[in-house]
């Protein structure tokens, strides 16, 4: 095994250093232990919603190419299943996983034990209630009709109140943090925690409470969706990666200055995207042009992040063989670059003319939401859960199964949707072809997408089972983390 020379698994030998190192270890263990209940509540809820969303999604996916499956039942019609599945994914799984990871990271980075856990627990309870009410509302026919905001008003209120509790907690923690530099991860987390309520409230006010007139609704809707993807999920994902990658391999970020530059350019440019999804729509041209320009400019922060992670990991890529966290996180970071590049290409007018209104948009969304954010979240869970539960993951084989079925599942799905969407767009764009040509052209790709959905379902069930084992105390008791590729000699008698 080629372990780089600098990695020193043994703690330093001198007596003095051992003592202070012990102090650090105990302190860190105390902090981790204090986050245990809150983090596990959020993670358990998130994973439960993930399973539910995956099951809804698989049914919805089949209905697109076999529309008479379970047809005619109002709460299973595709037009309700699809938004239900997606909203549960973003508000149930993604947001709660993100908040769970953020809670643990905040505690670690503030270097103080978790205060006021009740704020978080009640926040989680209300949030779960909101998602549940929203899900039932959509299936019952109360969807608002706005993408990513389909949860009816009664659900939105619950979500917002829940969030206020969680944000209060975050601000208190930050207020009482230990003196010292605020690490880049916390910039991203603070940004995310402060941007989300404003974003969500603005959308709710401008679309539902004091609805604005006409096409601006669609503009606000698109602005909300894009900003949610970048400034809420993207921020949490990037911040997490900036902690996990250096922490796992034991090397500081290659260029911290570049990372801070990346943060500001990320915030500035990403927040102006949104209208590039409405190219040539009934809007003033300047709005759309501004978004296209902003999308292209987001390549600057993407490049800084990519460069930074690459340089940090240079010489250590082989460690991905061993660390689940590193594997998932690096996959996510690479997907983030791919996601940004696809976004830029899609917003070029000549390309948009073909791919607008096709499944390419869906593929792009899942590239960001799953291939980037969800994979980074999986990575963070593999790091955090043992540290709050006090046991190690039990089966390396299940971790590997989880990784490969997720990686192949989302890779296949995104590829199929991007290529299929392009084919669909070419048919759409040819007025000599009847419209049904475009529908027919995408059908084989949609069938393939259902297959990739099966892969993802397997992946999530495996992970949920493994997490359940940890939750119930069946993790491995060990002094060392669970590893993906044990040394040959050790494999005898194990998995």
């Amino acid at each position: 095994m080629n372990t780089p020379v600098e990695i020193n698994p043994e703690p330093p030998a001198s007596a003095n250093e051992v003592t202070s190192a012990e102090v650090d270890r105990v302190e860190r263990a105390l902090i981790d232990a204090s986050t245990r209940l809150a983090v596990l509540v959020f993670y358990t809820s998130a994973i439960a919603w993930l399973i539910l969303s995956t099951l809804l999604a698989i049914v919805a996916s089949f209905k697109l190419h076999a529309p008479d499956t379970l047809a005619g039942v109002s709460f299973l019609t595709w037009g309700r299943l699809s938004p239900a599945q997606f909203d549960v994914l973003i508000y149930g799984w993604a947001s709660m996983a993100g908040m769970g990871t953020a809670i643990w990271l905040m505690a670690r980075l503030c270097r103080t034990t978790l205060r006021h856990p009740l704020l978080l627990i009640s926040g989680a309870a209300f949030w779960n209630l909101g998602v549940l009410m929203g899900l039932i509302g959509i299936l019952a026919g109360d969807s608002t009709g706005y993408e990513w905001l389909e949860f009816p008003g009664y659900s939105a209120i619950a979500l917002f109140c829940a969030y206020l509790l969680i944000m209060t907690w975050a601000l208190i923690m930050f207020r009482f943090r230990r003196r010292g530099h605020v690490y880049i991860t916390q910039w991203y987390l603070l940004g995310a925690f402060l941007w989300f309520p404003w974003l969500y409230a603005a959308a709710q006010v401008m679309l539902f409470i004091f609805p604005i007139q006409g096409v601006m609704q669609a503009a606000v809707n698109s602005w909300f969706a894009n900003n949610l993807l970048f400034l809420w999920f993207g921020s949490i994902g990037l911040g997490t990666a900036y902690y996990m990658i250096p922490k796992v391999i034991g090397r500081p970020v290659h260029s911290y200055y570049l990372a801070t530059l990346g943060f500001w350019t990320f915030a500035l440019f990403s927040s102006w995207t949104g209208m590039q999804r409405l190219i040539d729509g009934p809007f003033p041209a300047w709005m759309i042009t501004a978004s296209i320009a902003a999308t292209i400019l987001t390549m600057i922060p993407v490049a800084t992040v990519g460069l930074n992670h690459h340089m940090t990991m240079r010489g250590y890529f082989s460690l991905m063989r061993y660390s689940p966290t590193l594997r998932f996180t690096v996959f996510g970071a690479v997907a983030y670059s791919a996601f940004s590049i696809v976004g830029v290409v899609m917003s070029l007018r000549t390309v948009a003319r073909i791919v607008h209104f096709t499944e390419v948009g869906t593929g792009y969304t899942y590239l960001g939401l799953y291939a980037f954010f969800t994979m980074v979240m999986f990575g963070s869970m593999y790091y955090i859960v043992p540290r709050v539960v006090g046991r190690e993951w039990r089966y390396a084989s299940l971790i590997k199964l989880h990784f490969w079925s997720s990686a192949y599942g989302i890779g296949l799905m995104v590829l199929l949707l991007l290529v299929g969407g392009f084919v669909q767009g070419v048919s759409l764009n040819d007025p000599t072809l009847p419209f049904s040509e475009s529908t027919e052209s995408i059908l084989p790709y949609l069938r393939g997408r259902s297959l990739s959905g099966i892969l993802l379902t397997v992946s999530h069930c495996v992970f949920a089972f493994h997490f359940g084992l940890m939750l119930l105390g069946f993790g491995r008791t060990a002094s060392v983390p669970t590893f993906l590729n044990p040394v040959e000699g050790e494999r005898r008698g194990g998995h």
Partner: protein
Amino acid sequence: MTFSDFFANLRRYDANAAVIFDREEPAGHATDLVMPRRHFFRRRAARKAAAPRSPMVAPNDR
């Protein structure tokens, strides 16, 4: 901003990057990559070896 200021900034910033490490998990010490020892059928031995590494871990080791 002069070059020396710029480089001073870079160095200061690099110091900030080390914030996530401490004396027990210093830079250069991988935290998720220690050589594995498969304890599947040797849990007792492992538990003894793993015993009070930290006061917080011990109560969970049943």
